[in-house]
């Protein structure tokens, strides 16, 4: 994913404003001030058409990158100058990065909802250790918990464990569930099923690698099968 460089790293229009306390002002006030001080109409921020912008800002705040803030401000400026659709459809170069980052965050959530594997623990608890590149653990838990209304789901992160039960998210010490992280008793059943679905005449490792990037191969149990198949091609 490209990031901003040089002049673009400065905050554009927002270089000329002083920082303000966000909690002390409503969006309506800010829209009014923007019009009075800069003659820019951002009334769409108060309408339903402005809501996706906040969704994208939230997505970008979860995207792990050193230029996170610069991209948000630069995209906001494009939205105010050229219209919200210009920004939200990713037409400008910075807007394109802005929209792509939200997409990357939700793509990780969608991918992990499919790829994570649970190990059963005690008391209807299911434990998993995802492979995350962005700040998405809580989103993943909320999304996947709808399939498990009677279970406690636990995601082990580097420094803690996130737990969701009955829609409520909490954080606990990682060591409480660490022992359940590496249960491979089901691996043989999965390998058997996985291999049964493979049509060797249609082998296409490049496509397989596109849909399961190599960075996940050492994390997924079938990664070793993909590695093996990619070696036999050479």
């Amino acid at each position, binding site marked *: 994913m490209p990031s901003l460089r040089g002049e673009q790293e400065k905050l554009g229009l927002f270089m000329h404003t002083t920082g303000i306390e966000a909690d002390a002002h409503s969006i309506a006030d800010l829209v009014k001030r923007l019009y009075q001080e800069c003659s820019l109409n951002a009334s769409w921020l108060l309408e339903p058409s402005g809501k996706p912008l906040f969704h994208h800002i939230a997505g970008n705040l979860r995207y792990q990158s050193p230029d996170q803030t610069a991209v948000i401000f630069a995209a906001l400026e494009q939205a105010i100058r*050229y*219209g919200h*659709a*210009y920004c939200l*459809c*990713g*037409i*400008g170069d910075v*807007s*394109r990065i802005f929209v792509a980052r939200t997409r990357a965050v939700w793509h990780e959530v*969608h991918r992990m*909802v*499919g*790829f*994570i*594997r*649970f*190990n*059963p623990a005690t008391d209807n608890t*299911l434990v*998993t250790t995802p492979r995350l590149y962005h700040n998405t653990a809580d989103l993943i838990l909320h*999304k*996947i918990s*709808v*399939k*498990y*209304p*009677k*279970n406690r789901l636990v995601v082990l992160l580097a420094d803690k464990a996130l737990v969701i039960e009955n829609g409520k998210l909490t954080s606990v010490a990682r060591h409480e569930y660490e022992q359940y992280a590496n249960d491979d008793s*089901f691996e*043989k*059943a*999965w390998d*058997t*099923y*996985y*291999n*049964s*679905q*493979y*049509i*060797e*005449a*249609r*082998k*296409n*490792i*490049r*496509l*397989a*690698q*596109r*849909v*399961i990037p190599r960075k996940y191969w050492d994390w997924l149990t*079938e990664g070793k*099968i*993909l590695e093996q*198949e*990619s070696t036999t*091609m050479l």
Partner: protein
Amino acid sequence: METLDKLKLLGEGAKYDVCASTASRTSKVKNAAIGKTMPSGVCHSFTPDGRCISLFKVLLTNYCERDCAYCPNQAGRDIPRVRFAPDELATLFMEFYRRNYVEGLFLSSGMWHSSQNTMSETIKVAEILRTRYKFDGYIHLKVLPGASDSEVQTAVKLANRVSLNMEAPSASHLAKLSSRKNFADELLGGMAKISSHLSHQRGVSHSTQYIVGAAGESDRDIVSSANTLYKKFRLKRAYFSAFQPVENTPLSHIPAAPVLRENRLYQTDFLLRLYGFNINDLVFQSSGNLDYDLDPKLAYALYNPDLFPLEINKASYSNLLKVPGIGPRSAERIVRVRRHHAFKDAAELKNAGIVLKRALSFITVNGKFLGNKVLLNKPSRPSFEQLSLWGDSRDFMFANTVFNN
């Protein structure tokens, strides 16, 4: 036989069936203990051939009394025959689901004793999942040819999707594949039963599958058949499976159908379902097959040069969908953005998601034509090089696949 050994045989028996999980907001179980059909399109893994694994796709049994010439489970073929007990299969599936290895169940079966006997066993699995395990996730049940009306009704009640494989587009084609399947009564009649019961069940859909390249059918035959089913029987989706010869079957001498042919059919199917094309828009060669060198949308554009170029800032949404390189999402973005901002250069269109390499010869941007005028005025197929099928790295679908024409 051990459960894992059965899983190997019965999983392999189902691998040629094509399926995907779909979202449905309709719940089948009150106070569900586990399972949900939202969101859709979740893939839990991909095989080394790049196909998505989203469902637990197995046969209930590979015993079969039918003689379908393409099928590894056909009667008379010397293979180990096994079956899952309904309880056993339900338990195994729940173990996969609980651990989030699969998104739902796709259950098919060979025909064991009779279609009625097999359907009742299949339905039993779904009943165990819905009532004992209170599973509210995705279940796809295969309806076997010759299933009774009440069996179809029960299957539709329990499942989120049902399907009945057409396999071939007409009775004469089907006769080359099976001497025991009746096209009119069992297949079309089965479609009619499914369609009538679906009208009483919200959130349930049906699909079908064609085998491509085993019975001498043309692409026009398959597309026309699917189009009729979409209109007449409210079919949701048709799937196409390129024929792969299986040893010790009557069709083992027929070469494998190229995967490219399967993909062209899917592209054509998408044009009909999502792009507003009708069957008369499609371009077939004299053989009745699609042009495998060009994707069907590009073929349409070349065949109708009088419709192009379109001005990107003025063309309607439905006309934009006719332009190669513009899909529903990018067409929608164009329409949204140009309310406040006129597109001025190609880079903006690229950011809107248009595949410029394909689209530029068929559009103008603010009155300016940026494509190749010679090609547009005198379109000739040899002048066009098929640059990419999807315009992105999905070209990898063909990168290493062996074609046997």
